[in-house]
């Protein structure tokens, strides 16, 4: 596995720009103004931090930004919010049921996502979808704790659990 610890010096530049831009955006969001001295300071700080962190990790080099990806990211966010609400309604059913009837268990699913960031997003999404929680990850396999076990077959479970997100995530993070 290409460890997340090892930055790839060759592609350092790419990660740097992405991260710096992200941080600068965050900075401007935080300050909520675009006064010139503030933005300049923000760019400086972002650049410094981005330099420091891209030397520490190669995660950011997998993140590329393009309009298509952004579009998919927004789509994914929408999808995600729907799923999150569903998950909560689902959860409310359990929580307010007079007797909680569940059959928990841990199943294994496989993911096609290759980039660490993508997998992270997938795992996070799964954690917020109805009745599932990622317990462990090992390579391409994710082990999911399900509140109400519907299948123990890996492929079927993959479709059920990861299905809603995987496509968008693949397009966003590769």
């Amino acid at each position, binding site marked *: 596995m290409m460890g*997340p*610890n090892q930055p790839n010096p060759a592609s350092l530049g790419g990660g740097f720009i992405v*991260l710096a831009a*992200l*941080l600068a955006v*965050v*900075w401007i969001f*935080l*300050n909520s103004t675009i*006064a010139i*001295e*503030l933005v300049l*300071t923000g760019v400086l*700080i*972002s650049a410094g*931090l*981005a330099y420091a*962190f891209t030397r*520490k*990790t190669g*995660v*950011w080099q997998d993140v590329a930004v393009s309009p298509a990806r952004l579009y998919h990211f927004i789509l994914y966010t929408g999808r995600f919010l729907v799923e999150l609400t569903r998950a909560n309604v689902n959860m409310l059913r359990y929580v307010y049921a007079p007797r909680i009837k569940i059959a928990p268990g841990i199943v294994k699913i496989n993911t096609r996502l290759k980039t*660490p*960031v993508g*997998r*992270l997003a997938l*795992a*996070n999404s799964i954690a917020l979808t109805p009745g599932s929680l*990622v317990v*462990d*990850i090992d390579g391409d396999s994710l082990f999911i704790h399900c509140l109400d076990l519907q299948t123990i077959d890996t492929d079927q479970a993959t479709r059920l659990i990861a299905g809603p997100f995987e496509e968008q995530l693949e397009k966003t993070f590769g």
Partner: protein
Amino acid sequence: MRRASIVFAITFFGLLFASVAINHTQSVSLWPLARSYVELVPRELGAPNVITGILLNYRAFDTLGEVAVLFMVAAGVGLVLGRQPNPTVADPPETARPSSEIVQIATRILAPLISVFAAYIIMNGHISAGGGFQGGAVLASCLILWLLADAQFQVDVKLLGLLESVAGVLFVLVGIAGLIFAGGFLDTRVLPLGQLGAFFSAGAIPILSLLLGIKVGCELSVILARFRA
């Protein structure tokens, strides 16, 4: 016997505290001194955040003192724990179960974001709630996260120590600048006050805040790193 005497002592302190609490009345207006601060800080120092103004100008000597406290603790923890090579030091990386990929990736993504947030807190200390200490603490929390996620992560204590020293020396130098160019030691009015509420304003307070943030962040990080070792 022993338990009873403890109970007795605590009861007594309870009574004492009760007498304090009963006789405490919520104040309806500020003490004259406090009121003067609220008026003085924006006017004289140009900082909207009165607390930061107090901390970094009027009571900057206190602040310098507490920086020294942290500095000493960083060194002191090193002295206490660094006496003999601890047999458990070398162990954790091999025996400890590495944290999952999810946590590791999340850490790597979050850490820069936390850092930029810390920078925001530090740099806005004079304008809004925040300041060097708070920002420094956030900065150090970033390191905690990293340490938790990655057992093998080696903190560059030397670099951090260097940074904190430089920041400390600069802090003192800014204080001396106040002595030479303004009203006295640690007077922050060595730089123009600027417009109230602007990013670059309030004299040297943002600079002190920045130095403080770096210093506190480094010191807390050094302390944490020493604890792990």
